[in-house]
């Protein structure tokens, strides 16, 4: 009962948000959050459920973004068609990607995917004639207001999470997890491990590509360093899932929320809290602290990663019981 209630309330709240909150800035952050829900969940189905830890998801994100951008720039294809095509092209890129990486296991898979992700960035940079190189692609955004983008992102996030949930609870999902747990055993149970790894990758690439295409449409500008960034997408996708909880349906969503909020917290010096305190008290210490906090946001990320891996290896959702237990032990029991 309670479970169903949450499932209804959360989307409803999210859907009504643009009407309740008039801040475009807040909506923008929510759009980024929803985008990360999609990317994190996509990464999670491949890595968290199928056990293939990809360090190259920027490839799919970037390919999706470039598909939408190039189609619009050269053929004036509507960005919304571009979005669907972005997902599909990302999926197609996934095929050679899988062919190269899937014969490899564990850390070697990770390395190969990293190399491919980086390789595609270099290619996009060098293939100036086709991609516009580092000068990037700039298009005029379709909408002047945030709300449509917000709803599209929301739709994308809800669809991707729900579809992934549906898949996880059906045959392919069982097969994915079997592959994650033991490839040899899985094969002996009649699971075509290569095929199902590729299916998992395709789903993952599709949604990531869609997210990339939405990014293109929303941001209006991309270049290879932006959308193929190892750190900003490949690694960040991992962190989002890890922080939230690998191999859980809603973990990446929680992780996305934490990461986006965390970044903005630090970037703005806790939303100007320290600046405000600095002005209110006239103490230069707060101003200095504010500066330090702003400076340190990537450092904060790094420390967050280390702390999470050491103490919450299954993420906030995966280790929620542990968090609860520890918090309660400290509080009422004293």
């Amino acid at each position, binding site marked *: 009962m309670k479970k169903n209630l949450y499932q209804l309330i959360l989307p409803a709240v999210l859907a009504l948000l643009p009407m309740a909150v008039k801040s475009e800035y807040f909506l923008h952050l929510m759009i980024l959050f929803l985008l990360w829900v999609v990317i994190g969940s996509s990464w999670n189905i491949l*890595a*968290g459920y199928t*056990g293939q*830890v990809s360090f190259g998801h920027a490839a799919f994100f970037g390919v999706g973004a470039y598909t939408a951008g190039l189609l619009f720039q050269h053929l004036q294809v509507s960005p919304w068609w571009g979005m669907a095509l972005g997902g599909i092209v990302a999926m197609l890129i996934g095929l050679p990607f899988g062919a*190269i990486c899937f*014969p*490899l296991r*564990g*850390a*070697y898979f*990770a*390395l*190969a995917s*990293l*190399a*491919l992700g*980086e*390789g595609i960035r*270099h*290619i996009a*940079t*060098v293939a100036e004639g086709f991609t516009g190189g580092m000068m990037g692609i700039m298009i005029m955004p379709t909408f002047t207001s945030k709300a449509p983008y917000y709803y599209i992102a929301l739709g994308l996030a809800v669809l991707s999470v729900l579809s992934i949930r549906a898949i996880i609870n059906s045959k392919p999902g069982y097969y994915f997890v079997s592959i*994650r747990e033991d490839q040899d055993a899985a094969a002996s149970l009649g699971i075509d491990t290569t095929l199902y790894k590729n299916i998992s990758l395709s789903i993952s690439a599709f949604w990531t590509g869609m997210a990339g295409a939405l990014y293109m449409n929303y941001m209006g500008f991309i270049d290879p360093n932006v959308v193929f960034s*190892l*750190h900003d997408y490949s*690694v960040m996708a*991992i*962190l989002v899932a*890890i922080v939230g909880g*690998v*191999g859980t349906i809603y973990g990446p969503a929680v992780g996305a929320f934490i990461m986006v909020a965390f970044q903005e917290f630090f970037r703005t010096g806790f939303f100007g809290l320290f600046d405000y305190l600095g002005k209110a008290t006239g103490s230069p210490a707060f101003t200095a602290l504010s500066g330090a906090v702003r*400076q*340190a946001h*990537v*450092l904060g*990320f*790094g*420390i*967050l*990663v*280390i702390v999470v*891996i*050491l103490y919450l*290896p*299954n993420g906030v959702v*995966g280790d929620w019981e542990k968090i609860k237990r520890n918090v309660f032990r400290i509080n009422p029991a004293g």
Partner: protein
Amino acid sequence: MDVFLQTLVAGILKGGLYALIGIGMTLIMGVMGIINLAHGQLMMLAMYVTFVLNTMGVDPYVSLFIAMPLLFMLGVAIQKFLLNPLMKVETILPENQVLMTVGIGMVLTEVARFVFSSDYKYITTGYADRTFYIGNISFSVALTIAFVIALSFTAAMFWFLLKTDLGRSIRATAQDKDAATLMGVNTGRITVITFGLGSALVAAAGCLLAPVYYIFPDLGGPFTAKAFIITILGGLGSTVGAIFGGVTLGLAESMGATYFGMEYEDIVGLTIFILVLLFLPGGFKRLTKV
């Protein structure tokens, strides 16, 4: 012909330095089977150490003897307090250690940025842009020195691994951890020492690179990538392989730059990497058994 020879020399000299970066990585990967995505960042840190010492008037080649022990200690601390505890942690992804090194790399980079800002730092020495000529071919003095030192470090490392009990224990741990424990090897300590050694070696590479290059916080990433390529090319845990891998990568980059175009430099490296992963798992080591 001159173009070819000059390219060859450039590639080999650069390869010596790469080899030194690679040995540290190959040790760490070979012994512990973990991928250290913070390897280049450790080198970056060593370069800052060199830089700071240089502002105090210490020559980069002298600072080798300060940076190496410092980074050794840092490596020891990282392995002991951050990586070893992970072995006991139960998670879905065995790649947690890799992710941990990502976090460590981020922290190292940002700490460097915090302290030194994003500015490019550089070290000026009397010999940094000296050259000598053999025929028409120029040799950069600094790179040549780096090459010689890199080779001697590799030789020393080779001797250490082959002829000392500690070196043997490291190799034994890499080959069979439990059996090594039964022989009285404290494998926990060995992994710590190995990570320290790997860090010290890449620190040496940093000190040698500092006079010919420049220093900035984001420098680590590309060198981590190079270290992988070298390790995979040479084969895990193989010092000789690391030299081979380093020189091969150096040559491939130089030849690629001359005959394909310099913008393909990284693509060439990555292509070799993937080809070796797919078609020669085990790398050079598998061909020669050393």
